[in-house]
């Protein structure tokens, strides 16, 4: 037994550079795992951030997910190393080692690595957990004595230990099965299998392309709104068809279309007869079938990671930006009690300084219309109708809010309609509406234009129609129902916590009192725990993607070490060989990236159209968060690419 331990230690030492990445990645995975388990067992914080048990349920789901992933990751890398070592195991076998002894050796090595990684993971995980708790407490302004939370949660440690033992047992079992299945001949006959020349099926390759395009078409069909198949046939069946189509498409695309396309590229001799292409292209076609499974898995992982990250950032970011329209002024409330209103303005001025506060009283008039071409906004609210606002009130409010008015002066029978949702075609423009002044008396008004700049929050006014001051005065004299609203704006008012907190007690239980600060704060409170949990999943996806790419490339480099020696003998200098290596690594990295990016963009478009209420009509509100997700992902990806390239160079150039 002592001998076995010595061999295990020596193996780890000799293959240090090889194992170090494995060790680092396992330690990293365990860090994430431990910090997440600590978090999900942290009742002090969970109680505070979740009132309805939503976060607990979500974190339970995520725990399952994380556990499944850790198991997958460990067995993937374990099998990978096993296969790399068949030759070594074959030599042991020739020397007379029993298979059971070899399994012991492998398990011993696994135990050494896992426990070293576990210690690192627990320490770093505890630090990460502490950091996460600190960040949440600060972000959500929780009243928690962070010193009460133990640095290392004993329950989490016990849980992690048990889990690792379970994983080690699974690995032992899988190693035993692999060894039992392999004969001595297989073990000795080298670790690289003969790869067969591939036959390319043209039909399959086009089916792949078409299936992907069909999936994209279905995804985009969502944007047709009520006429789309998603509405006419149903959401779930179309979602299922889209998913299946894209996944199958990806499989055929990578399996058949890619080699087909590259095969065609070879026809261009002036491009193909080039010192690096002539090596890279055949290598790639040769390898693609054996790599196809990995590439498909990676593409789906990349799509999943990016779609998840993109939609989460979008869900967090978009409502915050949309607050600009939902509550256009910093503070807004209807005047029900004049004294209360005066007091509120005083408090605001007292808190922020009189010179910093712009308050404006606006009266809107409710009016109905018998026309039959009425806009959607007319019927959104409880009692269908228009809210009339005078041109000068509108302009003053918009300026108070720090925005520019989009139209010139109105003539008497012209109006501007404030839209709830953006409408690029401006379908309402030019319509003529009849407004009922009295049951017998009415006035016709033409919609000169529409605007998205609503002066008053949607809680207080929808279907707002801006009319000239002259007409407004006339209508007012008829004594129709009215509502008076006070809007408070001013420098830094939208972000002012103090003004909100000083005013809020005056308007307890008043649903029409709205504050942009409060709204944004509420959104962050609501979404940050979701965001946090999703971040865990995303990080784990990142590690999975990166590590699989790393291992795959390393294994390619090892199997091709001899070929690079031949190339060097033929007169390829170091620079040329490096160029070939980096191009080959780049090709393997770029396929899942490009395909996954495309998949996820269509997924996010569908998600956005299906589940998000677009009030802004600005592409930037969608593009910015998605771009953010893509940039973060790309940066992590580039780091993995550089690490992988370096490791491959090391394998090729370091002799023995």
């Amino acid at each position: 037994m002592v001998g076995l331990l010595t061999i295990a230690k020596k193996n780890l030492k000799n293959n240090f550079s090889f194992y170090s990445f494995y060790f680092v990645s396992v330690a990293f995975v365990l860090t994430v795992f431990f910090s997440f388990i600590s978090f999900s067992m942290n009742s002090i914080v969970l109680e505070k951030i979740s009132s309805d048990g939503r976060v607990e349920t979500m974190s339970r789901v995520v725990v399952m997910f994380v556990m499944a992933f850790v198991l997958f990751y460990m067995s993937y890398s374990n099998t990978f190393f096993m296969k790399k070592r068949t030759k070594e195991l074959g030599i042991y076998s020739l020397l007379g080692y029993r298979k059971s002894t070899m399994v012991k050796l492998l398990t011993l090595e696994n135990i050494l690595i896992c426990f070293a990684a576990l210690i690192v993971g627990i320490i770093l995980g505890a630090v990460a957990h502490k950091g996460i708790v600190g960040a949440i407490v600060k972000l959500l302004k929780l009243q928690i004595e962070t010193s009460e939370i133990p640095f290392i949660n004993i329950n989490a440690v016990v849980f992690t230990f048990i889990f690792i033992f379970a994983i080690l047992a699974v690995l032992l079992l899988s190693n035993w099965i692999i060894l039992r299945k392999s004969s001595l001949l297989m073990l000795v006959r080298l670790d690289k299998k003969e790869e067969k020349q591939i036959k390319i099926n043209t039909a399959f390759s086009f089916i792949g392309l078409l299936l992907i395009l069909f999936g994209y078409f279905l995804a985009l069909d969502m944007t047709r709104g009520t006429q789309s198949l998603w509405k006419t046939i149903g959401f779930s069946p179309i979602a299922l068809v889209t998913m299946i189509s894209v996944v199958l498409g990806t499989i055929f695309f990578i399996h058949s279309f890619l080699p087909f396309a590259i095969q065609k590229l070879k026809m261009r001799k002036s491009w193909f007869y080039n010192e690096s292409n002539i090596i890279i292209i055949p290598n790639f076609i040769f390898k693609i079938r054996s790599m196809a499974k990995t590439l498909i898995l990676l593409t789906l992982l990349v799509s999943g990671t990016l779609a998840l990250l993109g939609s989460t950032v979008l869900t967090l970011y978009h409502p915050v930006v949309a607050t600009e329209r939902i509550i256009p002024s910093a503070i807004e409330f209807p005047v029900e009690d004049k004294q209360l209103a005066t007091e509120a303005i005083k408090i605001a001025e007292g808190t922020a300084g009189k010179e910093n506060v712009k308050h404006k009283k606006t009266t809107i008039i409710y009016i109905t219309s018998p026309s039959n071409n009425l806009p959607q906004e007319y019927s959104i609210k409880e009692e269908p109708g228009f809210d009339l606002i005078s041109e000068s009130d509108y302009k003053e409010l918009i300026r108070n809010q720090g925005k520019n008015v989009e139209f010139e002066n109105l003539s008497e029978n012209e109006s501007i309609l404030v839209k709830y949702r953006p409408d690029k075609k401006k379908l309402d423009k030019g319509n003529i509406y009849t407004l009922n002044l009295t049951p017998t008396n009415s006035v016709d008004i033409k919609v000169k234009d529409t605007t998205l700049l609503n002066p008053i929050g949607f809680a207080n006014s929808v279907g707002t129609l801006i009319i000239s001051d002259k007409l407004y005065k006339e209508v007012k004299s008829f004594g129709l129902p009215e509502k008076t609203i006070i809007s408070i704006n001013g420098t830094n008012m939208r972000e002012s916590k103090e003004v909100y907190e000083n005013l809020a007690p005056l308007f307890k239980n008043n649903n029409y009192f709205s504050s942009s600060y409060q709204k944004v704060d509420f959104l962050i409170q609501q979404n940050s725990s979701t965001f946090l949990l999703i971040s865990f999943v995303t990080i784990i996806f990142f590690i999975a993607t990166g590590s699989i790419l790393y291992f795959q490339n390393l294994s390619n480099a090892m199997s091709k070490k001899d070929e690079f020696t031949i190339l060097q003998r033929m007169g390829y200098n170091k620079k040329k060989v490096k160029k070939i290596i980096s191009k080959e690594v780049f090709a393997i990295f770029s396929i899942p990236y490009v395909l996954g990016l495309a998949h996820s963009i269509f997924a996010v478009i569908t998600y956005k159209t299906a589940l998000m209420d677009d009030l802004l009509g600005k592409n930037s509100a969608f593009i910015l968060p998605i771009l953010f997700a893509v940039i973060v992902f790309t940066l992590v990806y580039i780091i993995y690419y550089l690490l992988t390239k370096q490791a491959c160079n090391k394998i090729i150039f370091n002799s023995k």
Partner: protein
Amino acid sequence: MNTLVSAKNVTKIYNKNQVLGLNKVSFDIQSGEFVGIMGASGSGKTTLLNILSTIDTPTDGEILIDGVDIKTLNDNQSADFRKDHLGFIFQEYFLLDSLSVKENIAVPLTLLHKSPEEIDSTINYLAKRFGIFEQLSKYPSQLSGGQKQRVAAARAIAKQPSILFADEPTGALDSHSATELLQKLREVNEELHTTILMVTHDAYAASFSSRILLFKDGNIIKELKRNNQTRKQFFEEILKEISK
């Protein structure tokens, strides 16, 4: 004929046990010659080949190939030198498995930036010459050992190297394939005037060359010339010499 390779007092010492890889070896090779190097394993013949082909460096001595002092070359220069001047055939073929026969032969030509038309016509010419035209679109794993070695030879000759180094080229071949290959090499030497330096421990293979350097313990112990003998007579002479 002019001197293509000139080696003077080439010495190689492997640090540890002070065993001499090569001990002050000197010889010349004229351009257009077919020279064989014979010796048992450990006699220094592979060391010499590695040094001549710029893969290894001598401890001492001077080597000029095509007028270039190969000791002074750095990594990149020696890679370029191999690219422009040297061709190789190895016992293990060293074909690139993922490349077709045609692509394997094209590699050294792309390194020299030849035009696609020139590459194609060179490949076709050599493939016919080496009897592998039918195999051009096949892959190394589909070929027999003899075919593989002929592909390797065509690949080595494609760029018209100043000198072709062959390291035990028949070592892994059956006698029929070996004869076929050796005949091809001699044809190439006679008709294309390619200079060939072949390392072998096999007297039969060596008998195809025109001059033989016999190595033992890092020294050249004897030089045999074929002159006007037939290959068979030369073979007899070699056998006699090595059984001494």
